[in-house]
């Protein structure tokens, strides 16, 4: 078990050794976002911009325009939220080669409370043209996603978490932008999940198997562009979809899947996520339970949707 932000810190430092054009920026949170690992190894290529996210985004765009590959980090709420328009204008509109790695996404920020828990970032980043949006499930996938982002020319938003998460993928797992991954086969319904909810879906699928229900699990580590082929196959072959994400049900993975399927292949659906409300203080584990972001909810929703099938 490793936090995706820790995997990021490692991967960025590795990449920094391989490619001298990689630079990193942070807004006074380098210890938390783990860009500090890079900063220690490559101090000249690290820019602490202070608590000024808007300027950090613009600075990264400028660095990109002279050939650098900037990775900028802060908490998701400040990256996607505070600096949304800078990301739109200075990064996405010119298709600048800037990588926005936002840590502390979702409610598992925990004790800091609702002010710091970003449950809207996937939606607002996904709405911007030219933007690629990645939400890895675990440490291994994070390393792959960071490498894929560095290799891709253009803006990428990568959402990571604060806490240690269960391993879903084996070491060396290859990440491809635009591709999802079926992590468990099944025929009665499909869990389409992202981030830490994929591990929960695997637990739920295993338990449902014992009750004679065959649940497929499709992990979407790349929300945009969406792996339409994989989603369509799941809809056609299982006829029922339960999405799950540590994010609002408005506009995130559930929104993306619903938008796509409602036009291509209307399918019974249920979205598991945060229902149009802010987060609150508490321990990460307590909050996941409080918001129903766990295997138990997925099991309940699977049974409910099968009744409607």
């Amino acid at each position: 078990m490793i936090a995706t932000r820790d995997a990021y810190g490692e991967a960025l430092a590795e990449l920094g050794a391989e490619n001298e054009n990689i630079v990193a920026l942070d807004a006074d949170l380098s210890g938390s976002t783990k860009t500090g690992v890079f900063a220690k190894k490559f101090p000249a290529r690290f820019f602490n911009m202070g608590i000024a996210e808007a300027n950090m985004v613009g600075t990264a765009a400028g660095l990109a325009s002279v050939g650098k590959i900037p990775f900028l980090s802060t908490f998701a709420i400040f990256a996607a939220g505070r600096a949304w328009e800078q990301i739109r204008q200075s990064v996405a509109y010119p298709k600048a080669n800037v990588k926005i790695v936002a840590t502390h996404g979702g409610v598992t920020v925990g004790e800091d409370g609702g002010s710091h828990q970003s449950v809207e970032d996937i939606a607002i980043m996904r709405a911007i043209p030219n933007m690629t949006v990645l939400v890895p499930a675990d440490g291994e996938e994070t390393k792959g996603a960071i490498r894929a982002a560095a290799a891709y020319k253009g803006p990428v938003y990568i959402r990571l978490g604060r806490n240690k998460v269960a391993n879903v993928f084996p070491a060396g797992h290859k990440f491809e932008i635009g591709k999802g991954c079926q992590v468990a086969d099944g025929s009665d319904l499909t869990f389409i999940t992202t981030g830490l909810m994929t591990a929960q879906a695997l637990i739920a699928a295993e338990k449902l198997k014992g009750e004679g229900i065959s649940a497929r699990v499709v992990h979407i580590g790349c929300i945009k562009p969406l792996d339409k082929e994989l989603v369509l196959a799941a809809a056609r072959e299982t006829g029922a979809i339960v999405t799950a994400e540590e994010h609002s049900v408005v506009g995130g993975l559930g929104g993306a899947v619903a938008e796509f399927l409602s036009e291509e292949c209307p399918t019974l659906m249920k979205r598991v996520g945060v229902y149009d409300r802010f987060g609150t203080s508490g321990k990460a584990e307590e909050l996941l339970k409080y918001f129903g972001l766990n295997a138990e909810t997925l099991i309940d929703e699977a049974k409910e949707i099968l009744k409607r099938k």
Partner: protein
Amino acid sequence: MKEKIVELQEKARRLRVAIVKTLHKSQSGHTGGSLSAIDMVCALYFHKMRHNPQEPAWDGRDRFVLSKGHAAPALYVTLAECGYFPSEDLMMLRRLGSHLQGHPDSKGTPGVDVCTGSLGQGLSMANGMALGFKLDGKENRVYAILGDGELQEGQIWEAAMAAAHYKSDNLCALIDANRLQIDGEVAKVMNVASIADKFRAFGWNVIEIDGHDMAQILSALDAAEARKGAPTAIVAATVKGKGVHLFENKASYHGVTPNDDELPEALRCLGELD
């Protein structure tokens, strides 16, 4: 040098004519702020900056960021005059399918390096470029033109703080202080004075000039380059709509273009018609 100044003054007059004709044709765009900034844009492109219109992506070029992106006509007529694209393209300004967007767009226009227009963001990008050049030990310089109204944006001061912190002496900001913004006088809408004191307080080298005096513009640009250890802000007192009395010092001409009746008089002011 005196000859150079006369040459640049004549170039600036011709660019003003091009701005007026372009905006008359497009019937959409920003007249006042284009005319106030053009002497500085002219001095940069025809004297100070190293660049190559035949090779827009030349690695050794200095960079220009029009942070007050609504003055795009000033940039476009200058780029056309340099030869980055045919002058005929100017007649397509703001039209569907044209590479000359309402505000500068690096994706389509040769010679434009960044997208600007949403105010307050250009200085951050310019400083990012400056930091990149420093990192690579390159001599390229970065110039950004800002509006005085634009200084009301908080991000400008985040960028000002960062540029001084990182000692970006390869960065020069030119403030086109024409004293007017859409809703009226800058001093009345939201006073930004003293601009010079503010930049000084943020750790910048500050030079105050008349932004229409070519000799002062050139010597300020040289002084900026000579200054090591700090970025330079050239605070240029300008006249919105400069060169055409119909438009001068009128906030109402911020986003209004010359109409058919005004065109002959405007061109006459600029020495084009008898």
